């Protein structure tokens, strides 16, 4: 059974047909990179998976279950699907440690000591345990994004969504975030990453999909995708960014 199974997904913003029938399967442990020009619907697509965006037609199965099924509690669903945003979106009034422990304590009912222990080990994993008692504003962009990743991981999600996680970073901070993501991929996390970091795609993606105009135009394993793009639009896009 696939971890995520999307079929014939359609979404409109008013008259604008932003997703035009996307069907996609993501297996457990698979790392999928989604690229494409801006406005192609890639962020909207992954945001549908944890219901940050609603859609009008089609189905999304997560772990075999329709995410719109009445028996699915939306907060539990979201606890199992982590998301990392372009703008980090840390809570500025809480310390790094509390950013990471808030949801486990409040949503999962983990006790405070246990949550802090887990949080500190996650912060160590992303390389910022020594900043645990600082506030987000005191950290660099790259550090903030690594905290955001730790915050998502603290919920022990089955899938991680990345929505252009490095686009808002200064160039010298991109690698520190990508390295954390690569480690995560190698450890077997199921990941859907909207990114234009093609080095990352080459190194750890199982599959790259190219979206344009709200539809998947082409998909292939990274080697093939970069060496032999078939579609004209994919070729044009790759020429632009490589």
């Amino acid at each position, binding site marked *: 059974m696939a971890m995520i199974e999307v079929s014939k997904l359609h979404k409109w913003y008013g008259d604008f047909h932003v997703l035009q029938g996307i069907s996609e399967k993501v297996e457990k442990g698979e790392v999928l990179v989604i690229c494409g020009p801006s406005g192609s619907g890639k962020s909207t697509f992954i945001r549908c998976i*944890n219901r*940050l965006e609603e859609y009008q037609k089609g189905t999304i199965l997560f772990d075999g279950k329709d995410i719109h099924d009445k028996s699915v509690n939306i*907060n*539990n669903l*979201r*606890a199992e699907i982590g*998301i990392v*945003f372009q*703008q980090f*979106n*840390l*809570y*500025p*009034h809480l310390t790094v440690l509390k950013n990471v422990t*808030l*949801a486990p304590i*409040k*949503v*999962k009912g983990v006790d405070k000591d246990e949550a802090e222990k887990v949080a500190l080990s996650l912060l160590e994993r992303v390389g910022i345990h020594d900043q645990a008692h600082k*506030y987000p*504003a*005191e950290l660099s962009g790259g550090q903030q994004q690594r905290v955001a990743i730790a*915050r*998502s991981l603290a*919920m022990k999600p089955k899938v991680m969504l990345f929505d252009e996680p490095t686009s808002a970073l200064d160039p010298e901070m991109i690698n520190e975030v990508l390295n954390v993501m690569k480690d995560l991929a190698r450890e077997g996390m199921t990941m859907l990453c909207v990114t234009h970091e093609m080095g990352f795609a080459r190194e750890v993606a199982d599959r790259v999909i190219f979206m344009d105009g709200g539809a998947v135009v082409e998909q292939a394993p990274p080697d093939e995708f970069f060496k032999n793009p078939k579609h004209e639009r994919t070729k044009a896009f790759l020429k632009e960014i490589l």
Partner: protein
Amino acid sequence: MDRALNYQFDWQLVLSGEYADWLVSGVITTLEISALSLLLAMLLGTIVAVMRMTKFKPLEWVGLAFTEFFRNTPLLVQIYFWYYGSNQVLPEAVNKWLYAHDFEFAAGVIALTVYTAAFIAEEIRSGIYSIPKNQLEASRAGGLSFIQAYRYVILPQAFRIIIPPLISQSLNLIKNSSLVMVIGVMDIFYMARQIESYSFHGFEAFTVATLIYLSISLVVSLCINLYNKHFLRQISY
């Protein structure tokens, strides 16, 4: 000779004996009416702010009408309105109870509460709206329910923004409370005037009254500044 030149200052007069007792009781009344009105205005202001933020149109309109009406009419007129008009507007039982107790004080509290609540509602609403939308999104995405997201993420940030303007609304309320003297509430201002009419030492009486208002306001301002220094530095997005 000009009368003013013969005026003998007598500070001792207003600061001792019966006159001093009057002033003290005036200060107590001012603090009481301000504190009670502030508490009620916070409650009412929060309710009105929530009404204005619901997606339910009739509630939104009632909230909007409330704020626009009470913000845009003079407080002095509103005080007279509640004093003379309350028996037309309020239920009979409430009026009876009010007449049996301190009716002037109650009319003053109602006027100050409703007027201040209209301003407080706007401060609360704009404070909550100033929190970036992505904060709600990030907390919901992490699995927090809508109420948890407000309780742990949105409101704690909003309150840090709202509290300084709320304190300055409280300052306004304390100063505005001097107006209730027109309907006979025996606050600082009322007492100062009474001292003037008994002793003809109006200058001393009103100077002391002014200084009392000033010191109350300065204490409140000092608190705002301490608060700002302590809490506002770490917020940035």
